[in-house]
């Protein structure tokens, strides 16, 4: 068809390109064009805020309340945590140790530490972070096989062990030594009364197995602590027992002299052991297990 028209064509390339001028939209197109342009123009007139201003006004306005509440909660938690952490370090458990001297002539005087419920509860929070419940225990007494008069005794510790027992200034080292003196290996272990067991159980310091059974305290870390050179002490005591049996046969004077010598050696040994485990620091005495 085009080939058939070619002999009649007298147009140039410029004429063909001018046909492109005739490619125009219909008149009604311009009404829509003007309407759209008007909308865009009005939208362009509206001042566009910078993105940081939109962020600050829109986004921060939405999240301001949650962020504020979270900040307050976080601040409160931090303050409470700092306060609870500062309590055991600055003011450890103040236990009024009412030492009851050995009544009825017993060689095992009970060392009673009475703690107020509030102090115990406060120390519990510091001792175990993961233990949320406040344990109100009626830890009325904790007996130790020591004839030590300790009016104030502080027990500070964490999850692992009892670190130190701070004595009052008036507690003399000699008294502590005497308390350790004359005790056998089994006596050296503190014997906790049944009232103190819930306290230890709540502390979760010595294990849960020994918490409710007093007899199981033998397996607790505190009771498993043995004084150094116990073997030697046991060996000496065994020899004393042997000698006791021999006293029936041999003379009493020899026996008495031998026992005195052994007793002196034991006292010296206990003194050395106590000194090595006791640390005097100002007005407090720390015991190392």
């Amino acid at each position, binding site marked *: *068809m*085009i*080939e058939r*028209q*070619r002999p*009649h*064509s*007298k*147009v*140039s*390339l*410029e*004429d*063909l*390109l*001018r*046909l*492109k*001028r*005739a*490619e*125009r*939209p*219909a008149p009604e*197109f*311009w009404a829509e*064009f*003007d309407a*759209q*342009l008007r909308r*865009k*123009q009005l939208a*362009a*007139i509206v001042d566009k805020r910078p993105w940081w201003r939109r962020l600050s006004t829109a986004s921060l306005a939405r999240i301001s309340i949650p962020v504020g509440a979270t900040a307050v909660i976080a601040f409160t938690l931090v303050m409470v945590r700092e306060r609870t952490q500062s309590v055991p370090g600055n003011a450890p458990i103040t236990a009024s140790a009412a030492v009851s001297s050995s009544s009825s002539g017993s060689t095992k005087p009970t060392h009673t530490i009475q703690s107020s419920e509030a102090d115990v509860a406060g120390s519990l929070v510091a001792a175990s972070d993961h233990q949320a419940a406040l344990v109100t225990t009626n830890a009325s007494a904790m007996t130790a096989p020591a004839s030590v008069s300790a009016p104030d005794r502080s027990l500070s510790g964490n999850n692992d062990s009892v670190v130190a027992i701070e004595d009052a200034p008036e507690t003399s080292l000699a008294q502590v030594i005497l308390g350790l003196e004359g005790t056998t290996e089994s006596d050296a272990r503190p014997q906790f009364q049944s009232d103190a067991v819930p306290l230890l159980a709540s502390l979760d310091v010595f294990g849960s197995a020994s918490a409710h059974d007093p007899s199981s305290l033998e397996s607790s870390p505190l009771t498993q602590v043995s004084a150094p050179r116990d073997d030697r002490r046991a060996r000496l005591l065994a020899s004393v027992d042997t000698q006791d049996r021999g006293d029936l046969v041999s003379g009493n004077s020899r026996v008495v002299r031998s026992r005195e010598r052994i007793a002196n050696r034991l006292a010296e040994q206990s003194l050395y052991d106590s000194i090595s485990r006791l640390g005097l620091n100002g007005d407090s005495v720390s015991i190392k297990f």
Partner: protein
Amino acid sequence: MSVGLKSLAKPLVGSPERQHEADSDWQIVQKVQAGDVAAFDRLIVKYRERVYGVIYNMAANREDAADLAQDSFIKAFQSINRFQGQSSFFTWLYRIAVNSTLTHLRKARLRSFFSFEKIHEEDKSAEIINQLTDKKGADRELFVKELQEKLNEAMLKLSIKHRTVVTLFEIDGLSHEEIAEVMDCSVGTVRSRLHYAKQLLQAELQSYTQS
């Protein structure tokens, strides 16, 4: 007043019509710059078809041409305070439109979708079509449609810059100097591009043109 305007507005074209047109545009621009926003509508009505035509012949898509033309007017409106009258307003407006279209075509190079306007047979166009065919009725419409497809196909074979030069020179009637100003290139570059583009078009449309 007019003397001062002429000293500011220095259109490159020397024809009295273009000079008068540039002065008229400059007055309107000054009104818009003074705060008369409605005065800009006169510029829109005056140049919307030409701007749309340039963009349409470059993009070969009527929808994109409408959007780009509107965006060009919006950009011109937003930047009207920076127009100092160093060139004619329509040259400045063309520059905005051409640059927007070039940016759009570069982005949408892989997305080629074409939609064409219908050729309105008027005095000049009808005469050209009559020279090409003597058909009437539906056959004539079919011939015109086929011719239009061939024309646009040949135009689309040109590069964007060559297509722009051809559009501005052959279709819109701008001078070499004006095209150079719009495309921010030298007049020699415009002539070179125009010559090369016309050679390609001649080869593509030789079946319609004089041998």
